[in-house]
């Protein structure tokens, strides 16, 4: 038992791998025997949750001192705290919101173009009895607190659904990108020589690809599925991370503590995972928080130009639908716009705060 634990490098890794294998087992069952135990996204969520719990929350809990230290430093950044609160709110909305709101796809023409509560809008309707257009003042109702769009769909429900989509895309694509970038960067720096050269030239090639064009291409070839959009953004967005992680690891590699832990008998694997990665993790977290808004915007932009997944109600899609009726129903375009704006701002604030907290030079 002890030997097995050692091979995996500790009880935590063993448990993590075990649960991952169990998940794989269910996935195989799903694929070949019983169909649709979970939807594909659920597997991804579970993986994500496992990673977060074992390599995020658990270490934070174990080194409470460090957590407290960084929290104290982040706390000084008021905007960052506001950003964090807003993000937590968004996550809660994304997880629980869709169960509480109406169906975002339910069309209800009689109630179309209703303004948000507290506003009223003039609407022209064709009156059959008189055969004339009547202009009426319609106030917002609490039935649709944020109004409805030109097909009578509930704006609140659409925004909540959009939150889920945007966070999905933002978190998952960033996770994929960060993971690839981190591993490639550290390995490239640690190995050096021709391996470093090959990996970095590959990164160069990836960097020269016009990212948005590639996205359009992928969507054009494989069809506009949210999955492909996430994968496409994730698989192309790692280059900056890889570069940064590499350059940081290069300078870390020559630091004495790497030599010191070698002199105490640490293996290469241990040095990479125990000494290099924890040291670059702070900057990786910063890049991650700062790149999430970019990814969210990229997805919105894709939806906006009509290359998004048409089966999901994302902010970009609503925004695009709203721009056609900007004169009659401004709220359709403005509301997802505000959500995008606030979300991007919140992640950027948080990113800034985290960067300041992790920067040892900004000792306050």
């Amino acid at each position, binding site marked *: 038992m*002890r030997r097995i634990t*050692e091979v995996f490098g500790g009880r935590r890794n063993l448990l993590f791998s075990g649960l991952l294998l169990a998940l794989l087992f269910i996935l195989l069952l799903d694929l070949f025997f019983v169909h649709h135990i979970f939807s594909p996204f659920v597997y991804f969520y579970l993986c994500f949750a496992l990673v977060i719990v074992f390599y995020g929350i658990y270490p934070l809990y174990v*080194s409470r*001192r*460090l957590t407290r230290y960084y929290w104290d430093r982040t706390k000084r950044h008021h905007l960052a705290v506001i950003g964090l609160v807003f993000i937590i709110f968004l996550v809660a909305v994304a997880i629980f919101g869709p169960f509480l709101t109406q169906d975002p796809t339910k069309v209800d023409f009689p109630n179309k173009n209703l303004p948000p509560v507290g506003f009223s809008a003039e609407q022209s309707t064709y009156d059959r009895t008189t055969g004339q257009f009547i202009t009426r003042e319609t106030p917002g109702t609490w039935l649709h607190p944020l109004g409805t769009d030109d097909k009578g769909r509930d704006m609140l429900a659409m925004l909540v659904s959009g939150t889920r989509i945007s966070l999905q895309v933002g978190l998952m694509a960033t996770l994929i990108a960060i993971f690839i970038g981190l591993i490639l960067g550290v390995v490239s720096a640690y190995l050096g*020589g021709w391996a470093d050269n090959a990996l970095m030239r590959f990164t160069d090639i990836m960097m020269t690809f016009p990212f948005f064009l590639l996205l359009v291409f992928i969507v054009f070839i494989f069809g506009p599925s949210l999955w492909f959009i996430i994968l496409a953004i994730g698989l192309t967005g790692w280059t900056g991370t890889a570069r940064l992680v590499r350059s940081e690891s290069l300078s870390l590699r020559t*630091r*004495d*503590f790497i*030599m*010191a*832990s*070698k*002199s*105490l*008998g*640490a*293996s290469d694997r*241990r040095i990479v995972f*125990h*000494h290099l990665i*924890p*040291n670059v*993790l*702070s900057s990786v977290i910063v890049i991650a928080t700062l790149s999430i808004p970019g990814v969210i915007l990229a997805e919105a932009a894709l939806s906006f130009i009509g290359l998004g997944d048409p089966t999901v109600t994302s902010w970009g899609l609503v925004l695009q639908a709203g721009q056609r009726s900007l004169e009659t129903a401004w709220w359709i375009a403005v509301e997802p716009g505000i959500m995008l704006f606030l979300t991007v701002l919140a992640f950027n604030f948080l990113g800034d705060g985290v960067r300041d907290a992790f920067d*040892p030079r900004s000792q306050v």
Partner: protein
Amino acid sequence: MATNNTILQVSELKTYFFTRLGVVRAVDGVSFGLRQGECLCLVGESGCGKTATALSILRLVDSPPGQIVGGEIKYHNENLLRSTGARLRQIRGNRIAMIFQDPQSSLNPVLTVGEQIMEPIRLHLKLGHRQARDKALSLMKQVGIPQSAERMAYFPHQLSGGMKQRVMIAAALSCNPEILIADEPTTALDTTIKAQILDIFRELKQQMNMSILFITHDLGTVAGIADRIIVMYGGRIAEAGSTLDIFDQPKHPYTWGLLNCLPTIAERREKLSPIPGMIPSLIDPPEGCIFHPRCQWRMSVCQQAKPPEYVILGEHIAACYLYQKAPASAGL
């Protein structure tokens, strides 16, 4: 002169660095033995190959550009230059441990001090978490870290330089190594802390009978702790002997120069006399004795061939043609 309590025998070690400008012969044929329970000091200016020698022993020379091109390093009866990576990792930290010069940069900034002391314990002794923790605590007490239980959870930046160096020593001592290599462990510390750290080394030697290879550029530091001294110059041994030999009857002109550089309280000197000239480039070293361009006693022979190591008396050897009449050494 390998006596039977020699636990580490370095013979004709050659470590070269292959740089773009040429081959740097950082260590060029160095031989010495380290005995059980003695403190052997390697002394010399910066760039004379002290650290390269130490790193070569643990096979930690960065490659590329560094490479051990020749010689033999025998630990008990095992040639470390032929050992596999896995075997070397068993030896490092467990049988031979090393302490580095700068405690500021030798500790991982994102791991707690406790974790770093426990690292070699968990790697080599295969203890559980609790036992490793207890061991780390007792080690911290041993090297004189007060409030050790609390300090376990400290990060390196919360400790002073002296405390950090104690942590490094604790980590190096954790598996009771036979040999401790200390690469300028006191250079980055101020004088009072230096004295305390030197006391720790002295205790280690006396109480645990540990062999210490102490590397320094400071002859003053050496005097109080060394049993034997090797003076290195330009990747070669200039003079070697007991501490008394080196301080009382130095034979090599370079040693004379080094000793002249030391300030003394006894006599009042207006100026310290430095050794004239610069350390030669090790890429393109001077012909013959590498010290001859700076030597006031140079003879024509010095410019032609490298001097062999002549035995002055017993273990006292000097690589200088001034002692041509003495028999050539068979290796220390």
